[in-house]
C-alpha cells in the first residue's frame, strides 16, 4: 500500500539516522580513547631520558676487550710502558660501566632479570678491579704478575659482557617486534574505527538524502495539488461568473420582448378596430418569435453540450446555398444600409447541410448585426476536400483581449454591447461546437474600429458529377408521397390536413402493422411514424421496415423530446424525429430536409405568415392549425374531441375499476396526443403528468375532465374569434 509505505518511511529514516549517529559517536569516542593511549605511551617514552642500551652494552664489551688486550700484551711482552694505556682503558671502561648501573638507562631491558643480573655482575667486577688497577705502579717488582692476574680475570669476565651484549641485542629486538606489534594493532583498530566511521557517515548521508528527496517529492506533490485546486477553483469561479452573466443577459433579453407582448396585450384590450388589433398582434408575434429564437439557441446549445449531434451527410450545391443566403439576408442588409456580397464557389460537396447553413447564418447574422455601415463579404474556397469560408465585415471590431473569450459560452464582448446588440451570446459558442463536431477549426482576426474576419474550415467531400444537391434552406419541394402512421385519429387528421395544405400526397396507417404493409404497397418517399401505437409500436415497425430494405427517410413523431427517445429513434433506424405537437413549420422543415429537392416547381401558395409559421399567438398551435387546415376542419376536430370525451372518461373509469394501469396509460396517451394537437395545453399536460403517477384516482379523472372541458371552451372561443377576423 503506497500510502502506508510513504508514511512509515520517514520514521524509519529518522530511526536509521539516529542509530548511525550513535554508532558514529561511539566510533569517534573509541578513536579518541585510542589516541589518548597512544599519546600517553609517547609521553611515557619521551619522559624517560635514555640512550640506546644496546649501544651502551656494546661499548662496554668493546672496552672490556681493549682492556683485556692491553693487559695481555703487558703480561706477554713485559713492556711496562704500555701501563698508561691500560689505565686509560680502565678509566673508559669504568665510565661505561657506571652507565650500566643506572636504572633509567637500562629501563627497557631491566624487566629481564637475566640482563639485570649480568649487568650487576659486570659492574661489581669492574668496580672491584679499581683497587688492583690503582695499585699498579711501573716500579712494582711484581707488576707483570699482577697485570697477568688482571688479564686472567678479564679473560673470564669478558664472557659476561659478551653475553650481556647478545642478550641485550635479542631483548631489544624482541622489544622492537613487540612495539611494532602493538603499533600495528593500534593502527588496525584505528583503521577499523575509521572504516566504521566512514560507513556510518555514508549511511547517514544516504538516509538524509533519501529524506530530503522524500520531502522534496511531497513538497512537489503538494504544490501540484495546490495548483490544481487553484485552477479548479478558478475554473469554477469563471463558470459560475459566466452563468451569472448569462442569466443576467438572458433575463434582459427575455424581458424586452415580454414587455412588448404585455404592452401590446394591454393595448389590445383598449384598442378598437381590426387594423389596430392586427398591428398589436403583429408586435406580439414578433416578440414571441424573438423569444423562441432565443430559447431555440439555448436548446440547441444544450443539446450539443449533451453530445447529441446528428450525423447527416447530403449533397450541397455551394453556389445555390450562396444564392439562398444572399436572398435570405437581403432584407436585413437593406434595412441597415449594408452591402452583402456572397461569393461561394459553384461546387457540389457532401456535408452536413443543416449545420453548414447554421454556421453561415450565424456568422452572416453576426456580421450584419455588428456592422453599422459598410459591407459584409462572404467568401468560400474549396481546396481538395477542405472548405474554407470567410465572413468579413466593416464592423466595430474585437480587441485581442476579447477575441480570447469570443468562443466561450454565454459571453458577449461586454454588457454595454449586449445592451446594444442583444442576443444570448451563444451563437459563436454553438458555431465553435458545430465546427469541432464536423472535424474542422474556426478562428477570427479583427481590429477594433476596422472590422472582423471570421473563418472556419471543415473537411467535406467534393463531388465531381452533376448529381443534384440537396437544397439547404427552404428549397422548393416537389410533391411527396407521405405515409402517416398514427393511431390517434385527431393527430392523424391534423397531419394529413397539413400535408394536404403543403400539397403532398398521403397514405394512412392506424398502427405499426398497417404501416409495414403500407410501406411495402406504396413505397412512400417518406414515413412519419408515431412512436406509441397499438399492435406494433413505431420503433419496432421501423426496425422491420428497415429489415425489408426500405431506405427512405422515416421520421419519428414523439411527444417527448428527451435525448433517450431521440436515441431510441435513431437506433431503431429512424432518420430524424419531430416533437409533438406537430407544427406546419416543423413538418415543412422536416420534409424539405429529408426528401431532398427535386426539380419540381413549387406548387403551393402559403397563406400570409405561413412562410415562417410561428407560435407567438395566444394559442399558437390552434392558430397554426387554423391557418393550415382552415376553420371548418379545425372546428370539426374540436367537436369530435369534445364528443369523444365522455367515452374516454368512461373507458378510463373502467380501467381504474379494473386496476389496469396499462390501459390507463394507453388511454391517457391517446388523450394527450389529441389534446396537444388541438392546442389544449392544460388538459394535455395534465394527462402527460398523470401518466407519470399511475395508477389513476377518480379525483384525477374528474380534474382531467374539468380541464378538458375548459380547454374545449377555450378552443371554441379562439376559433370563433379568429373566424370573426
Amino acid at each position: 500500500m503506497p500510502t502506508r509505505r510513504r508514511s512509515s518511511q520517514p520514521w524509519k529514516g529518522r530511526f536509521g539516522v539516529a542509530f548511525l549517529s550513535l554508532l558514529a559517536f561511539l566510533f569517534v569516542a573509541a578513536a579518541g580513547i585510542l589516541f589518548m593511549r597512544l599519546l600517553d605511551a609517547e609521553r611515557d617514552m619521551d619522559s624517560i631520558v635514555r640512550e640506546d642500551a644496546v649501544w651502551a652494552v656494546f661499548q662496554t664489551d668493546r672496552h672490556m676487550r681493549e682492556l683485556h688486550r692491553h693487559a695481555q700484551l703487558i703480561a706477554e711482552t713485559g713492556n711496562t710502558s704500555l701501563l698508561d694505556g691500560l689505565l686509560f682503558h680502565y678509566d673508559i671502561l669504568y665510565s661505561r660501566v657506571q652507565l650500566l648501573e643506572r636504572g633509567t638507562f637500562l629501563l627497557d631491558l631491566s624487566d629481564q632479570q637475566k640482563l639485570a643480573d649480568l649487568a650487576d655482575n659486570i659492574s661489581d667486577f669492574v668496580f672491584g678491579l679499581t683497587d688492583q688497577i690503582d695499585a699498579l705502579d711501573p716500579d712494582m717488582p711484581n707488576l707483570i704478575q699482577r697485570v697477568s692476574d688482571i688479564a686472567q680475570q678479564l679473560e673470564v669476565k669478558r664472557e659476561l659482557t659478551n653475553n650481556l651484549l647478545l642478550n641485550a641485542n635479542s631483548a631489544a629486538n624482541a622489544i622492537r617486534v613487540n612495539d611494532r606489534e602493538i603499533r600495528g594493532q593500534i593502527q588496525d583498530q584505528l583503521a577499523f574505527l575509521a572504516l566504521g566511521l566512514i560507513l556510518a557517515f555514508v549511511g547517514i548521508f544516504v538516509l538524509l538524502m533519501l529524506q530530503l528527496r522524500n520531502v522534496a517529492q511531497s513538497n512537489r506533490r503538494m504544490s501540484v495539488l495546490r495548483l490544481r485546486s487553484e485552477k479548479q477553483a478558478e475554473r469554477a469561479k469563471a463558470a459560475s461568473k459566466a452563468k451569472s452573466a448569462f442569466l443576467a443577459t438572458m433575463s434582459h433579453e427575455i424581458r424586452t420582448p415580454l414587455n412588448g407582448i404585455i404592452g401590446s396585450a394591454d393595448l389590445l384590450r383598449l384598442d378598437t378596430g381590426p387594423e389596430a388589433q392586427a398591428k398589436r398582434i403583429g408586435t406580439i408575434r414578433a416578440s414571441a418569435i424573438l423569444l423562441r429564437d432565443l430559447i431555440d439557441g439555448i436548446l440547441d446549445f444544450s443539446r450539443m453540450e449533451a453530445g447529441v449531434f446528428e450525423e447527416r451527410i447530403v449533397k450541397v450545391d455551394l453556389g445555390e446555398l450562396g444564392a439562398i443566403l444572399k436572398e435570405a439576408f437581403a432584407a436585413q442588409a437593406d434595412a441597415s444600409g449594408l452591402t452583402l456580397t456572397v461569393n461561394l464557389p459553384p461546387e457540389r460537396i457532401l456535408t452536413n447541410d443543416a449545420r453548414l447553413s447554421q454556421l453561415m447564418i450565424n456568422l452572416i447574422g453576426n456580421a450584419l448585426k455588428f456592422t453599422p455601415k459598410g459591407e459584409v463579404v462572404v467568401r468560400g474556397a474549396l481546396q481538395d476536400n477542405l472548405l474554407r469560408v470567410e465572413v468579413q465585415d466593416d464592423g466595430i471590431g474585437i480587441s485581442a483581449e476579447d477575441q480570447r473569450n469570443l468562443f466561450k459560452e454565454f459571453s458577449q464582448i461586454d454588457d454595454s454591447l449586449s445592451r446594444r446588440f442583444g442576443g444570448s451570446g451563444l451563437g459563436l459558442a454553438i458555431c465553435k461546437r458545430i465546427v469541432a463536431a464536423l472535424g474542422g477549426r474556426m478562428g477570427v482576426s479583427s481590429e477594433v474600429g476596422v472590422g472582423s474576419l471570421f473563418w472556419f474550415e471543415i473537411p467535406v467531400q467534393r463531388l465531381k458529377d452533376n448529381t443534384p444537391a440537396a437544397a439547404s434552406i427552404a428549397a422548393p419541394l416537389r410533391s411527396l408521397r407521405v405515409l402517416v402512421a398514427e393511431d390517434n385519429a385527431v393527430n392523424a387528421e391534423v397531419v394529413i390536413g397539413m400535408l394536404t395544405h403543403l400539397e403532398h400526397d398521403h397514405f394512412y396507417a392506424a398502427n405499426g402493422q398497417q404501416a409495414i404493409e403500407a410501406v411495402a404497397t406504396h413505397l412512400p418517399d417518406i414515413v412519419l411514424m408515431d412512436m406509441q401505437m397499438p399492435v406494433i409500436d413505431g420503433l419496432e415497425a421501423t426496425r422491420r421496415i428497415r429489415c425489408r430494405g426500405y431506405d427512405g427517410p422515416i421520421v419519428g413523431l414523439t411527444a417527448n423530446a428527451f435525448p433517450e427517445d431521440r436515441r431510441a429513434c435513431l437506433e431503431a433506424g429512424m432518420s430524424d424525429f419531430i416533437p409533438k405537437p406537430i407544427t406546419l413549420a416543423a413538418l415543412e422543415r422536416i420534409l424539405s430536409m429529408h426528401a431532398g429537392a427535386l426539380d419540381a416547381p413549387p406548387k403551393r401558395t402559403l397563406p400570409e405568415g405561413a412562410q415562417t409559421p410561428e407560435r407567438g399567438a395566444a394559442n399558437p398551435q390552434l392558430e397554426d392549425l387554423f391557418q393550415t387546415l382552415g376553420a371548418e376542419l379545425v372546428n370539426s376536430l374540436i367537436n369530435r374531441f369534445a364528443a369523444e370525451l365522455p367515452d374516454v372518461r368512461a373507458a378510463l373509469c373502467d380501467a381504474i375499476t379494473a386496476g389496469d394501469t396499462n390501459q390507463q396509460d394507453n388511454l391517457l396517451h391517446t388523450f394527450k396526443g389529441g389534446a396537444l394537437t388541438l392546442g389544449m395545453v392544460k388538459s394535455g399536460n395534465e394527462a402527460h403528468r398523470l401518466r407519470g403517477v399511475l395508477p389513476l384516482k377518480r379525483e384525477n379523472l374528474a380534474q382531467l375532465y374539468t380541464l378538458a372541458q375548459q380547454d374545449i371552451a377555450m378552443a371554441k372561443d379562439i376559433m370563433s374569434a379568429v373566424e370573426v377576423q
Partner: protein
Amino acid sequence: MHILTHFRALAAVAVLGVVAPAWADTPTGPVILTVTDGAEAQAQFDLDMLDALDQRVTTTETPWYEGPQEFSGPLIADVMAQTGMDGSELNLVALNDYAAAMPWSDIVDFPVILATRLNGETMAVRDKGPLFVIYPFDEHPELKNEVYFSRSVWQVKAIEVRP
C-alpha cells in the same frame, strides 16, 4: 668553494703564525682540547684557557646521571670564536675515538657548552671527563632525543672544524 676554503685556511695560518695568536695565550697546563680545521691550523686549550672564557651553567637531566645535574663550562661558540675558525660542521672526537658530527647551526641556535665541571667539580676520565658537550635539554625539551644525545659526546679531546 675550493678557492674560498683555501683562502680561509691561508688566512687562518696568517692569523695563527704571523700575528699574535687570537686567543689569550698558549696552554701552560696539560692540553685537554685540540681544535683543528683539517689543514695546518690548530688550536690547543688547557683548563685555564677554557675557564678564562665566559662560563655558562646548564642544569639539566641527562640519560647518564641520576636526576638533574649542574654542568658548567664555556659555550662552544665562544671557543670557536677564540680559534677564529669557521665551518659548517664540528666533528667532536672522544678519548676512545668515538666521534659525532654536530652541525655548525647547533652552536648558533643553542647555548651548547663544553662542560668542564659537574656540580662545580672537574671531571676525571672515569666520570666522563674532562670535557662533556651539554645541550640545554631542560630549556629545550625538544632536544631530548637520540640525535642530540648522540651529539652530546663525553670525554671530548678534540674538535675538527669541517668546511
